[in-house]
């Protein structure tokens, strides 16, 4: 009789697929995708012009992390629609890759001894920041696009600072692991493994990475099949999500994305970020008594909607593109260019930026500061009509701002006051309040 093997606790990590090859392939995909997420995220942060005014800045303590900020351009007009659509859609599509990557390295969490050396301890601390930071970024992003604000604080702060924590840890991880990934993929080959069917799928040879199971089970799927499942997951998420950013007839294909359906029909039937009811803008605030106040150069002009309609109107074809990744198609806005309104208070050439205030009584983004380049773009309007009809209450009646390439919330609805040359609330005499 053979002697029984020594008893040891059953190792729960028995998948024969785990090993440096699988981890390297998944890591390489993430290494291609995460920088795109990071850069489009940084662009979105810059698109709010946080360095222009306190009101635009949810992260006044950003310090060096705002090193790259620049004036957000108005060309091409679809810029933010593209960058933010890519950011959100790619983030959603990478979820299965991230989960598979974490699954592939799960045994490392329980590796014994837990701390081999000072170096190992530091690396594990870094991995906590990497895994915790990564899951935090994906979770806050995915919750935010579904309006589920359960995270501890302002999304902008958490997602921006969290991104830097994640990327900081990712840098070290990349430096330390890329050599192993390159060696593994060179030695084992990508195509050879992708051609290996289930019958010939074997555990990888034991190696110092500690990923290969000590007591591997029989394989039930090839590595090709496992990667195929991850890819199928990404494809499924792409199909039920991308339509909300592409728009047109494809919008309806976004079956699970928050903005896969238009809220109505007709000229005002496109996506609404925030309804008038939610913003507490009441019909009596927007009726006959409504006046737009335009200030600047120490002057004040008050205009009724009829007076605004009597000014020369201009048409701009522009989309609404939200930080949540969805966007509307190009809408035909009609209204008065912001630079014409600047001229009313004496800024005839090279108008400055403008501080825009809404009737909305409370909440973030009830006021924003726009930069001079945004005011000077002739397509930037105080819009009165869209698609040939008056703006609906939910789209900002009696008047809203629309600026090419600006994030959705920078296009203030239910506008009450425009102060040219200001970046914050001012008193009647034009002094900062």
């Amino acid at each position: 009789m053979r002697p029984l093997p020594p008893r040891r606790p059953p190792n729960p990590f028995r998948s024969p697929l785990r090993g440096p090859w699988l981890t390297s392939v998944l890591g390489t995909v993430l290494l291609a995708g995460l920088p795109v997420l990071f850069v489009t995220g940084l662009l979105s942060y810059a698109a709010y012009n946080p360095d222009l005014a306190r009101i635009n800045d949810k992260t006044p303590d950003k310090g060096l992390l705002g090193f790259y900020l620049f004036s957000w351009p108005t060309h091409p007009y679809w810029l933010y629609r593209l960058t933010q659509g890519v950011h959100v859609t790619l983030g959603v599509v990478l979820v299965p890759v991230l989960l598979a990557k974490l699954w592939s390295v799960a045994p490392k969490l329980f590796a014994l001894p837990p701390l081999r050396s000072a170096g190992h301890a530091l690396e594990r601390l870094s991995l906590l920041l990497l895994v915790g930071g990564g899951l935090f970024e994906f979770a806050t992003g995915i919750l935010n696009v579904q309006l589920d604000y359960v995270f501890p604080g302002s999304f902008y702060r958490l997602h921006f600072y969290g991104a830097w924590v994640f990327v900081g840890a990712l840098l070290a991880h990349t430096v330390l692991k890329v050599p192993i990934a390159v060696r593994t993929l060179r030695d084992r080959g990508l195509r050879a493994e992708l051609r290996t069917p289930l019958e010939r799928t074997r555990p990888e040879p034991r190696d110092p990475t500690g990923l290969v199971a000590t007591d591997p089970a029989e394989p039930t799927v090839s590595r090709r099949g496992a990667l195929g499942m991850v890819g199928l997951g990404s494809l499924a998420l792409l199909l039920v999500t991308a339509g909300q950013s592409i728009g047109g007839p494809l919008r309806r294909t976004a079956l699970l994305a928050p903005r896969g359906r238009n809220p109505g029909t007709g000229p005002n039937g496109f996506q609404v970020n925030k309804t008038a009811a939610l913003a507490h803008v009441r019909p009596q605030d927007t009726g006959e008594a409504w006046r737009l106040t335009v200030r600047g150069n120490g002057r004040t002009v008050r205009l009724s909607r009829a007076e605004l309609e009597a000014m020369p109107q201009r048409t701009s074809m522009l989309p609404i593109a939200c930080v949540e990744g969805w966007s509307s198609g190009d809408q035909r806005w009609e209204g008065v260019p912001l630079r014409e309104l600047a001229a009313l208070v004496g800024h005839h050439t090279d108008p400055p930026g403008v501080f825009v205030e809404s009737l909305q009584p409370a909440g973030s983004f009830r006021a924003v500061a726009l930069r001079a380049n945004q005011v000077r773009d002739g397509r930037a309007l105080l819009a009165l009509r869209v698609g040939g009809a008056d703006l609906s209450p939910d789209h900002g009646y009696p008047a809203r701002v629309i600026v090419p390439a600006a994030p959705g919330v920078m296009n203030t609805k239910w506008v009450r006051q425009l102060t040219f040359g200001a970046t914050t609330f001012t008193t009647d005499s034009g002094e900062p309040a």
Partner: protein
Amino acid sequence: MTGRRPPFLSGAAAAGRRLRARLRRLPGFRAVYGESPRHLVALLASFAVCGYALARLLARDWFGVVEWVVGAALLHDLVLVPLYGGADRLLHRAAGAGRRPRSRWRTSVANHIRVPASLSLLLLLVYWPLVSRDVAARYRAATGTSAEPFRERWLAITGALFALSALHLAWTAWRRRRRG
């Protein structure tokens, strides 16, 4: 690196080699630290970035954020992974897959449940707030549309995935029988 380099790099490479050799000879660096000096440099540089951002991330509700970052890692590693790993093992045990001698058919049955189930659960995980109707009231107030359809849509997609998988399995079985 052993490949041939252009001559203008060889000076820098030689200097790098000399520096690495000197670091390697440092008495007991590896014995004390356990890893190479490069490892320490990479981690310290990374901690500088992380620390700078963490100080800001934790500036307001630090406990809430720590709870989220550490909680996310623990919830994933100690709850989510064992949960889906365990479910997968139960599925395979129920289907008799992975048993010796190997049965291609049993493995195939298990995989035809595994694939649609994992896709369906993935969609549920990502779109949980909408599918569960946790945010239905806020969603309706903000967008002016109802969050009602998301649950039905997820159920319909799940049904379609299982139906497609069953069709594929039936087709595989028919082909196998025809081949004998």
